[in-house]
C-alpha cells in the first residue's frame, strides 16, 4: 500500500524516474549534527585516551602513550567499578523484567479503574534521575527517614540503618530507587506487545481449560520473546550508561561502593579533571558494550531479520 502510494507520488511529482535530491536535503542538518556533535567528539575520545590531559594542570599535558591504560589495569579502581556495574546492570535488568512483566500482565486484564492505575504506575517513567534521587534521599535518610521509622514500628530493626552510607546496603538502596523509575519502561513495552496479540488463541486456550500458568508459559511467553529480547538489550545498555540517579544519590560513595564504570568516567570529567584517564576508561567501556551487544545478539539469534525497521 505504502509502496504503491510512493510510486504514484513519485511519478506524479517528477514525471520520470530520477535520483531525488530532496531526501538528502531533508536529512542534511541531521547528518551535520550527528557528525559534529556525536561522531567527531567520539573520535577525539580515542585520541585523548593516549594523552595526559588535565585542564587544571596544563603544564603536564601531552602524549603519554599507554600510561592511562596502565593505570586502569594496575589499580583496583577500574575492576571495582566493573564489578559494581555488573551487579547494577544484572540486578536492574532482571528485576525490572520480572516486575515489569507482572505489572504488564496485571494491566492487560480488564478491570474497573485500569486506566487510572495504569497512569499511576507508569508515572515514574517521566521523572528525572535527579528527582528520583531526591525523593529517595528523603526516604532513606538515616536520622529522620521514613523507611527506618516504618521498619522500626514493624519491629524488623531496632537501630536506624544508614541506607546511603552503610557499605553493605548502599548498592541495594540505589538499585531500589532506580527500580522505581525503571519498571514502567519494561511494563510499557511488554504491555504494548501484549495488546497486539491475537485474542482467538487465548479464547481457544480458555475453551480447552488451560490454567493461567499454562497460558502464560505456552502462549504469552513465546509471543513476547522478541519484545523481551529487544527490551532487555536496550535496557542493559541504558542501565550500563546511566549516571544521573547514582551521581545525585550517593556520588558513587561510600568508598566507591556505588561507582559504576559510567560514573567513574563521569567523575573524571566532573570532579577530578583527569580527562585523559577518563577517555581511556571510555574507550574500554565502549568495547565492553560492543562485545556484550554482539554476544547477546548472537546468542539470542536476534537481528537476523530487519527487526530494526
Amino acid at each position, binding site marked *: 500500500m505504502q509502496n504503491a*502510494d*510512493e510510486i*504514484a507520488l513519485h511519478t*506524479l*511529482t517528477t514525471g520520470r524516474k530520477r*535520483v*531525488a535530491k*530532496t531526501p538528502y536535503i*531533508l*536529512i542534511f*542538518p*541531521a*547528518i551535520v*549534527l*550527528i557528525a559534529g*556533535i*556525536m561522531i*567527531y*567528539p567520539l573520535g577525539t575520545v580515542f585520541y*585523548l585516551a593516549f594523552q595526559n590531559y588535565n585542564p587544571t594542570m596544563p603544564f603536564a599535558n601531552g602524549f603519554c602513550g599507554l600510561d592511562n591504560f596502565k593505570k586502569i589495569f594496575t589499580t583496583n579502581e577500574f575492576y571495582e567499578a566493573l564489578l559494581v556495574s555488573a551487579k547494577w546492570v544484572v540486578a536492574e535488568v532482571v528485576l525490572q523484567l520480572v516486575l515489569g512483566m507482572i*505489572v504488564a500482565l496485571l*494491566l492487560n486484564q480488564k478491570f474497573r479503574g485500569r486506566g487510572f*492505575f*495504569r*497512569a499511576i504506575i*507508569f*508515572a*515514574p*517513567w*517521566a*521523572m*528525572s534521575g*535527579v528527582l*528520583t534521587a*531526591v*525523593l*529517595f534521599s*528523603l526516604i532513606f*535518610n538515616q*536520622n*529522620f527517614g*521514613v523507611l527506618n521509622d516504618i521498619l522500626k514500628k514493624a519491629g524488623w530493626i531496632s537501630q536506624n540503618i544508614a541506607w546511603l552510607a552503610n557499605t553493605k546496603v548502599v548498592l541495594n538502596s540505589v538499585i531500589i530507587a532506580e527500580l*522505581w523509575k525503571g519498571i514502567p*519502561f519494561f511494563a*510499557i*513495552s511488554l*504491555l*504494548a506487545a501484549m495488546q497486539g496479540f491475537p485474542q482467538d488463541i487465548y479464547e481457544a486456550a480458555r475453551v480447552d481449560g488451560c490454567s493461567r500458568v499454562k497460558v502464560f508459559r505456552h502462549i504469552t511467553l513465546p509471543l513476547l520473546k522478541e519484545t523481551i529480547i529487544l527490551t532487555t538489550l536496550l535496557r542493559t545498555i541504558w542501565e550500563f*550508561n546511566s*549516571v544521573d540517579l547514582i*551521581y*545525585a544519590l550517593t556520588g558513587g560513595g561510600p568508598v566507591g561502593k556505588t561507582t559504576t564504570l*559510567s560514573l567513574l*568516567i*563521569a567523575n573524571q*570529567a*566532573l570532579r577530578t579533571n583527569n580527562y585523559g584517564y577518563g577517555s581511556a576508561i*571510555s574507550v574500554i567501556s565502549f568495547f565492553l558494550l560492543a562485545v556484550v551487544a554482539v554476544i547477546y545478539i548472537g546468542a539470542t539469534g536476534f537481528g537476523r531479520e530487519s527487526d*530494526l*525497521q
Partner: protein
Amino acid sequence: MKEKKSAALVRWILVLIASVFVMFPLYWAVNTSLKQQSEILSKSVTYLPRIPVLSNFIDAWTNVGFDQYFFNSIKVSLLSVIFIVMLSIMVGYALSRYKFKGKNIFLGLLLAIQFIPAAVMLIPLFNIFNGIHLIGTHMSLIVVNVTFQFPFCCILMRGFVDNVPVALEEAARIDGCNRFQGVLKVVLPMLVPGIVTVAAFALIGCWNEFMFALMFLNDPAKYTIPIGLNMMQGEYGVHYGAIAAGAIISMSVPVVLFAYLQKYLVTGLSAGAVKG
C-alpha cells in the same frame, strides 16, 4: 466462579502494592514539603504535617532560586524542542516518503547513536564547546539536547507521517500546489497530534537533562532545575523542606506532559520505540 473471585482479589492486591510502591515517594515528598524544618528533623516521624505550611515552596521559589531555574529550564527545553520538532519533521518525512541510497545506514545511525553514553561525551563535548566559547551558555545545552533527543523523535515522527495518506498530497498537487506547499497545507495540519506527541517526548527528555548541564554551566544564574535540585542536596545544613518543594516544582512539567502522553505510551507505540 469461586476461582474467579480469588483471582480478582489477588489482582487487586498486586495492583495496590504496585500503586503504593509508586505513590509512596511522591506522597512523602508532598508530606515533607508541607512541614516545618523542626518537624522534619524531629525524631518522631509524622505521616501528615502537624501544621501544614507553604513556606518551603516560597523559600525554594524565591530564596533558593527555583524561579530562575524554572525559567531557565523552560527556555532551554522549549528552544531545544523547537529544533527537535523541525528536524524530526524533515527527517521523518524523508524516511516515510522517499527511498534513497544510504537510507538503511542512516536509520541504523539514528538507532545506534541512542546508545552512546552521556558520560563518555562529557569530556569531548566540553572541549569542543570550550573551543568555540559556548561553555556556560544555554546554547551549549540546547545543542546537546537536540543532538541526543532528535534521533528517537525522527523515528517516532516517521510513523506519524506514514499515517498521512499520500493521496491527499496528490490531490493538493492536482489543485496546483507544489510539493512544499502540499506538505505545508495538507501534511502539517494532519501531523499536529504527532507533532504534539513528539514535542512532549522531547520536552520530558530536555527537562530532565542533568549531566551536561552540570558539566557546562558554572553560573548559578544559568542553572536548570536538575542542577538546582542537586546543588541543594550538597549544601551544608540541608533545607529538606525546600528540597522537597523543589522536587515537586520540578515534577510539575513532566507530570502534565505524562498525563497527555500516557495513552500513546501503550497503544501508539510499538515495542522498543519508547525511550527509557
